[in-house]
C-alpha cells in the first residue's frame, strides 16, 4: 500500500461516519416538511375545534388517520423515487392534457384559498400580540417572496426544517394546559362516536384537513428534487412515516390543549385565534402565547410552501420552465404564478368586509372535490407495472389502498354535504 493509501485508510472510519450522516441529510426533509405544512392555519383551527367541542373523545380518530396518511404519502414518495417525476408530470403523461388541465385548475383554486387561509392565520396570530394585520400581512408576504426567490434552495430547506422544530410550541402548550392523563388515555385508546351531525362533521373534517390533495403533489416533487435513489428509498420512507407521526402528535396536543381547558370550561370557538385567546385565562399567559406563536409559525411556513409548490407543478405539467434556480426571464409563467398567488392571497385578507370564512370554506370544498380524483389517479399510477416495475403496489397493498381510498372518498363526500348544508343553513 502506498503512503497515500495508508493515510486514506486512516481517514476512512471518520469518512464513513460522515458519509452516512450526509447520506441521511441527502434524503430526509421532504416527508417531515410536508407533514408539518399539513398542520397549517386551517389544520390548527380544526384540531382546536375538535378539542374545544368534543374534549378528548375524538382523540382516537387520529390513529386511523395517521395510518391512512402514511399509506397515501408512502405511495407518493415511492412514485417520486422510482419514476423521478412529479405527480402532475405523471398525470399529464398518463391521462392527457384535458384531465391534467381540470385537475390543476381545481388545485390552483384550492391552493389560492389555502394561501388566503395561511395569511389570515398570520394576521390573526399577530393580532393577539397587538400587531395590526395591515403591517403583518404585507410584511409576511414580502418575507415569503424574498426568502424563496432570493435565498438559495439549501438555506430555504434548512429554514423550513427549523420551522418544523417550532411546532414543539404546541406540545408545551398542551402540557401547560394540565390535562387529566387518565382521561386522555381513555379518549385515545377507546373508540367512541356520537352519531350526531356535529360529531360526524368533525370526524370528517379532521380527515379532510389531514389528507389534502396538494400534499401529494408537494411531497412527490420534493422527493424528486432531492434526487433520492432507489437504494436510499428505505431512508426516505422512514422520513415520510416519521413526518406523518409527527403531524398527528402535534394535532394530538392541540386537541389536548383545547380539550383540557375550553371544553372543560364549556366554551366555544370559531377559529384558532379564539382558541389562543381562550387558553389565556384557563391555562395561563404562556400557554396562550405559545399557541399563538405556533399558529404564526405554521401559517408563515405554509404560506412559503403552498404558492411555490403550486407554481412548480402547474409549470411542470405544461412543460414551462420552473424552479427558483431559473432567472425570471427564463421562467416567466413560474414567477407569474408564484407572485400572483402570494399577492392575491395576502391581498384578499386585507380587504375589509370580505367574507374570509366563506372563502376558506370554498377552498376546503375544492380540496374535497379534488381528493377522490387525485387518490384514484395515484392508485392507478402506483399499481402500473410498466411505470413502477417491481416497485408497484402489490396485491395486498392494492386492496388496502383501494379500501382506504373508498373510505376517504366517502368521508369527503359526506364532508362536502355537511359544509354545503352549513353554508346554506
Amino acid at each position, binding site marked *: 500500500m*502506498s503512503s*497515500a*493509501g495508508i*493515510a*486514506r485508510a486512516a*481517514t*476512512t472510519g471518520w*469518512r*464513513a461516519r460522515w*458519509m452516512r450522516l450526509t*447520506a441521511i441529510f*441527502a434524503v430526509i426533509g421532504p416527508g417531515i416538511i410536508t407533514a408539518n405544512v399539513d398542520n397549517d392555519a386551517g389544520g390548527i383551527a380544526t384540531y382546536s375545534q375538535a378539542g374545544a367541542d368534543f374534549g378528548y373523545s375524538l382523540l382516537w380518530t387520529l390513529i386511523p388517520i395517521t395510518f391512512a396518511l402514511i399509506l397515501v404519502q408512502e405511495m407518493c414518495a415511492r412514485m417520486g423515487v422510482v*419514476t*423521478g*417525476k412529479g405527480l402532475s*408530470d405523471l398525470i*399529464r*403523461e398518463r391521462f*392527457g*392534457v*384535458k384531465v391534467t*388541465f381540470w385537475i390543476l385548475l381545481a388545485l390552483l383554486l384550492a391552493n389560492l384559498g389555502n394561501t388566503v387561509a395561511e395569511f389570515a392565520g398570520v394576521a390573526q396570530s399577530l393580532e393577539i400580540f397587538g400587531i395590526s394585520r395591515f403591517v403583518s400581512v404585507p410584511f409576511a408576504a414580502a418575507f415569503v417572496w424574498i426568502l424563496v426567490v432570493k435565498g438559495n434552495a439549501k438555506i430555504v430547506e434548512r429554514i423550513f426544517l427549523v420551522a418544523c422544530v417550532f411546532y414543539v410550541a404546541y406540545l408545551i402548550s398542551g402540557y401547560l394546559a394540565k390535562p387529566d392523563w387518565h382521561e386522555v388515555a381513555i379518549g385515545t385508546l377507546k373508540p367512541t362516536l356520537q352519531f350526531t351531525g356535529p360529531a360526524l362533521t368533525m370526524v370528517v373534517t379532521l380527515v379532510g384537513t389531514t389528507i389534502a390533495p396538494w400534499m401529494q403533489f408537494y411531497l412527490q416533487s420534493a422527493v*424528486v428534487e432531492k*434526487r433520492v*435513489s432507489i437504494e436510499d428509498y428505505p431512508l426516505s420512507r422512514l422520513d415520510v412515516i416519521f413526518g406523518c407521526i409527527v403531524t398527528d402528535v402535534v394535532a394530538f396536543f392541540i386537541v389536548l390543549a383545547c380539550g383540557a381547558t375550553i371544553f372543560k370550561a364549556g366554551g366555544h370557538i370559531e377559529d384558532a385565534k379564539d382558541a389562543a385567546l381562550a387558553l389565556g385565562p384557563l391555562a395561563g399567559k404562556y400557554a396562550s402565547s405559545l399557541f399563538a406563536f405556533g399558529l404564526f409559525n405554521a401559517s408563515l411556513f405554509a404560506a412559503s410552501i403552498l404558492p411555490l409548490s403550486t407554481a412548480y407543478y402547474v409549470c411542470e405539467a*405544461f*412543460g414551462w420552465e420552473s424552479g427558483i434556480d431559473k432567472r425570471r426571464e427564463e421562467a416567466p409563467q413560474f414567477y407569474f404564478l408564484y407572485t400572483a398567488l402570494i399577492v392575491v392571497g395576502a391581498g384578499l385578507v386585507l380587504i375589509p368586509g370580505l367574507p374570509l370564512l366563506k372563502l376558506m370554506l370554498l377552498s376546503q370544498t375544492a380540496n374535497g372535490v379534488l381528493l377522490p380524483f387525485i387518490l384514484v389517479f395515484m392508485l392507478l399510477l402506483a399499481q402500473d407495472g410498466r411505470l413502477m416495475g417491481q416497485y408497484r403496489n402489490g396485491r395486498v397493498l392494492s386492496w388496502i389502498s383501494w379500501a382506504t381510498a373508498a373510505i376517504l372518498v366517502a368521508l369527503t363526500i359526506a364532508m362536502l354535504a355537511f359544509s354545503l348544508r352549513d353554508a346554506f343553513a
Partner: protein
Amino acid sequence: MSRQMQARHPAPPEPSLEGTFLFLSELLESPVFAEGTRVGRLADLMVEPTNDPFPRIRALRIQARPRGPLQRVEWADVVLCSPGRVELKSLSSLKPLIMPPDEIPLSQEVLDRQMLDTNDAKVERVNDLHLLRARGDLRVAHVDVGFRGLVRRMGWQRAVDAIVRAMAPGAAYLTREQFIPWKYVKPLSSGASRVRLDVARTALADLHPADLAEILADLDRRKRAVLFRELPVEAAAEALEESTPGIQRELIKMVDSAKAADMLEAMPPDAAADLLENLTPSESDSLLSQMEPEEAREVEELLTYDEHSAGGMMTPDYIRLKPTLHAGDALAEVRRQADTVEHLQDTYVLSAGGKLVGWIPLRMLLLADPDESIKAMMQEHPARLAPDDSPELVADLAAKYDLYSLPVESADGRLLGVITVDDILIRVLRD
C-alpha cells in the same frame, strides 16, 4: 374538393391534400372505416426513425373497441387518413399488433412527453405533432411545444383564436407557433430496448458540456440514465465534470463500473477526486481499483487531502519545465504536454528532485527570444502554498497577485500540484 369527388376517387394520393399540414391531435381518435363499416378508432401513428429530416409514418394502430386489443395497419393499406375519417383498403388490412423495435409510437411515446431540443439545448414538453402530407406519405415535420398547441389539445383553438383576434388582432399568439423541426428533436423513451439515440447523437456530442450537464439535470431520472449511458466516454466525462455533486453521484452509479472508471480517467484528476469524495468509501475504492494504476494513484493522492484545503483543490496536471531548456524548446514542450494538461497559462520549472525552482507565465515564453534560457527567465512564484492552507487564503492570494494558478508544495519543497483559477472561482461562488 367536394365530398362527391372524394367518394368517387378514394385512391391516394389525394391531389388536393398534397403538401398540406395537419396535427396529430386532430387525427387521433378519428373513426376508422373499411369496406364501408366502422372498424374502430385511430389510436396511434408509428414513425420510422431514420436520418430523414421528415420521417415517414409507417403504420397505424387501431383500437377496435374500448379497452380491446390494438391492431396494426401498414401505411400502404391506408386509403385516406384525415381528421374525422380514416379509410382502409379492406377488412383484411387489419393485422395483429407487432412491435418492431425501431418504430416510435407517436402518441404513446412522444405526445405529452419530455423531449430534447438539440438545437436550443433545452428540454421541452410535447403538446402536439405537426404532420405533412407529401406524395401519398404522411411525414412528421415539427414538434409543437407552444401555448397554442395546448389550447388546441383542449379543443378550444377556435374559441380562443376568435377572442384573441377580437381583442388584439396583432397578438403574437396568432402568428408565432413554437415549432421545433423534428430533426432537432430527440425523443427519450424509457423502454431500454426502444432507445433510438443514434439519430441525434452527433448533435448531442457537439453541445457544450455545460449545456449537456444542464439538460441532464432537467430530465427525469430514467431519461437521464438513457441519455447518459449513450454518450461517448469523453462527452460523458465532460458533462459529469460540469454537473452538480448530487447528479454526479446519481450518474456515475448509472453506468457499469468499467465505464465509470474510464470516465474518471478522462476527467482531470482534481475533478475525479471531487466526484469520488461524494461516494461512499467502498464505492470509490471499487472505482479506483478499476482505473489505470497511474491515474488512480494521482486521484488517490488528492483524496488524502481535506476537500476544504489547498491540497483538496489542486490538480497534479500542470506544465513542467527543466531549468536547462531554452524558450524555444520550452514552447515545444508545452505543446507536447498540452494533451494531458488543461491549464496552459503558467509553466513551472522543477529541479531534478521535483522541487519548485521557478515559474514562467506562458505569455513570457511566447514573447521571449527562442534562445533565451529558462534559468534566466524564471521568477519566484509570489504565492507558494502548503497543502493545508485554507481556500480563503488561496482565493485572497490569487486575487492579490492576479494569478491564473498557484503552486502547492510539500514541507520539503516538492511541487505537489497546482490550483487553477477556475477551481477557485467555483469554490468562491459556492460558499
